[in-house]
């Protein structure tokens, strides 16, 4: 157990911070730890959580995805057209929304891999394209999502917020098994040392393509869940989510140099970030000062993750 905690130190730290923040939040909230409060909190957290997952797949292969927010905006607008009508129609609609995200990711991946262009440039360009298409779909916010479906996804199951159930499924149903596949291993190998991965006989092009496609899938899921929460389509949501998704993965212990971190960390980072924002809302700090305090907490949390550098007795290990 101790060994496990040591080798997953980053996730453990993020988890502890999250629990502490959540306790503080529920303690200060006038209505306390009710299902209602938890549900609203979890919904807000999961939107950013899914966006952070998308960012994670790009960052773990030593890339970055500046189109996460744009994919969300585009899929949100798509969702506002297709999530009405018959049950079967809505089921296909949800698949279509995620598929739209996957297509965006695939496009990013294709340009990055075959165009041999840095991810930061490619996703900056495609982000504009995606937002452009979203604006054509929804020049002004509008459209609708079936209320029954939206409620089912954003309320609670037997007192447990549905968003937390979805989070659990993402971790236990997807991530933990995925980490034990060749693709999961390949992502880390590629991010940590592309040369070593290539020489080991890994198909680095395929892995990178898969990573950005997965980023698109999770961007699509984020857009879909956002649609359930807001029940409208809005092309103007992209900016905040892209930057926050990067902050979230960093906070969750995913190194921007690639190869280190996990999806659990990315989710924890997103939850922490949203919890801080919620805490600010109820703490009485003037709203204009909130970004300042959020930034300070962010910096402090990241510094804790790097604290073990102080224990190194060989100075070269500090740079390793």
């Amino acid at each position: 157990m101790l060994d496990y905690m040591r080798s997953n130190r980053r996730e453990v730290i993020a988890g502890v911070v999250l629990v502490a923040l959540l306790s503080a939040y529920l303690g200060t909230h006038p209505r306390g730890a009710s299902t209602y409060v938890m549900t609203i909190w979890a919904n807000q957290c999961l939107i950013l959580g899914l966006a952070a997952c998308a960012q994670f797949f790009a960052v773990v292969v030593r890339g970055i995805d500046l189109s996460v927010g744009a994919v969300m905006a585009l899929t949100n607008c798509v969702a506002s057209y297709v999530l009405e009508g018959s049950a079967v129609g809505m089921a296909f609609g949800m698949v279509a929304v995620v598929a739209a995200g996957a297509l965006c990711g695939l496009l990013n991946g294709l340009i990055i891999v075959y165009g041999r262009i840095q991810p930061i440039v490619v996703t900056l360009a495609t982000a504009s394209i995606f937002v452009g298409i979203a604006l054509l779909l929804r020049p002004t916010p509008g459209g609708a999502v079936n209320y029954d479906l939206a409620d089912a996804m954003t309320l609670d199951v037997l007192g447990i917020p549905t968003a937390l159930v979805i989070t659990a499924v993402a971790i236990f149903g997807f991530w933990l098994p995925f980490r034990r596949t060749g693709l999961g291993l390949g992502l880390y190998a590629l991010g940590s040392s592309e040369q070593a991965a290539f020489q080991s006989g890994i198909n680095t092009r395929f892995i990178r393509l898969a990573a950005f496609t997965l980023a698109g899938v999770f961007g699509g899921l984020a857009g879909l869940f956002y649609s359930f929460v807001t029940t409208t389509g809005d092309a103007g949501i992209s900016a905040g989510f892209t930057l926050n998704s990067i902050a979230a993965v960093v906070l969750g212990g995913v190194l921007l140099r690639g190869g280190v971190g996990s999806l659990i960390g990315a989710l924890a980072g997103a939850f922490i970030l949203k919890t801080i924002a919620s805490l600010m809302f109820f703490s009485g700090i003037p709203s204009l000062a909130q970004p300042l305090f959020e930034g300070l907490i962010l910096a402090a949390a990241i510094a804790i993750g790097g604290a073990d550098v102080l224990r190194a007795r060989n100075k070269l290990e500090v740079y390793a």
Partner: protein
Amino acid sequence: MSNSSTPLLEMRDISMHFGATKALDGVDFICNAGEVHAVLGENGAGKSTLMKLIAGVLQPTHGQLRVDGSDVFLNAPQAALRHGLVCMFQELSLVPDLTVRENLLLGAPAAGIGWLRGQGLDKAQDVLGRIGGAQIKMAARVADLTLPQRQQVEIAKAIMKKPRLLILDEATSALSASVVEKVFDLVREERDSGTAILFISHRFHEIEALADRVSVFRNGQRVETFMKGDHDYAAIINMMVGQKIEELFPEKPPPRQDAEAVLEVRNYTWEGQVKDVSLTVRRGQIVGLGGLDGQGQGAFLMGLVGLLRKADGTTAIAGQPTRIGSPKQAKHQDIALAYIPEDRKTEGLILDQSIQENLELAALGRSDLDAGDAALYAGALEQLALKHGGLELPVSSLSGGNQQKVVLAKWLALKPRCLLLADPTRGIDVKTKTQIYAILRQLADQGTAILLLSTDYEELIQLCDETHVFFDGAVVASLSGDDLTPQNIIAATLNVSPEPQAAHA
């Protein structure tokens, strides 16, 4: 061992051009199953290029590869792996952030992109145990392993892929003699079960111990292929360099025990890895540090330039007690130490930067020197006879031996009083080695004190005036003069008495 059947691997009229340079030029090469085929040549002779072609990392500009008599096109390492061509690369192919277990699984024959079942891990663990790596934990991160441990994992990873042709490219360069022997036993066993082995090494006694057949390369061409024993060392060296080298090592001058002490270390201790080490390096002396890998000699050198925190002991430079807290202090003109690190690619150089920029790095921050002044390096570059196509090219464009010369040049420009070197000739060709030996002796004659860590006991005997052998963090033997024999050094590295009695290695 000449059988009439088709060779396992045949290369016909292979040429490989990088721009204007011809790394390989019309090479025919044959590799038979059940044979250890050593490939010899200076750096830049084309050996590594040849291996990369076989491993599918590079594709030839011209020519054809044949496996079992049929043409193949190896456009990626996966393609080579499918034919059973496995390469253990000189540049380590392990992923630092993954665990040993994950690295072994990476690219294993059974592992695709789907579920990993861990097939073959038993075999890998078995191999690790046999080559002295039993203490390497499967759950350990590769970044936390020492260099020799990483090489052991590399070997296990290669064997695990059940190669039909196994390429060992400087595979044992960081391993100690006893581990190398175990690896050789394993390689012989693989050979006897029908695997072809391609073996690249710069150490003659390793070739002597392992090879059945030897091919010598020079300037991108195969000079000759012959059975081991057909030619002696001198003849082989002549083939490699194309000119006569009478002696690898320069002549040793008579000992000068009365010269002034430049570096005096007393009772140096650190974290249980270095224990109570005291030694003195005098003007004009080359002092060797020997021992198996990881016995504290490497850490000791790092400590001297201030890389270790919380170390005990005193250091005196030219009689003045001095506290050295960082490399910046160590290179200050009042102290003037220079440290050539073990891993030139990560610690010695910034590979993507130009030769000129790398040269300037050491002099930056010295108030008495102008780092941008090219004249500062001209002397050192000339002395080292650095071969380059222009100082503005990236260091990565140079061969390994020439890269090491750049590391040396940037420090020699500071005119160090004492030069500390961590295995400076590891993985470097004979000719460059000889040049480096000559330069070290020349520097010593000019008054530099030199502390040389080496894993090659020939260096410790032929080059050093005095050698301290480390075992488990402490100096167990200090040998000089007639005591400086291979038997004494090997005995000391194993911490047994030199008489052949009850050796418990």
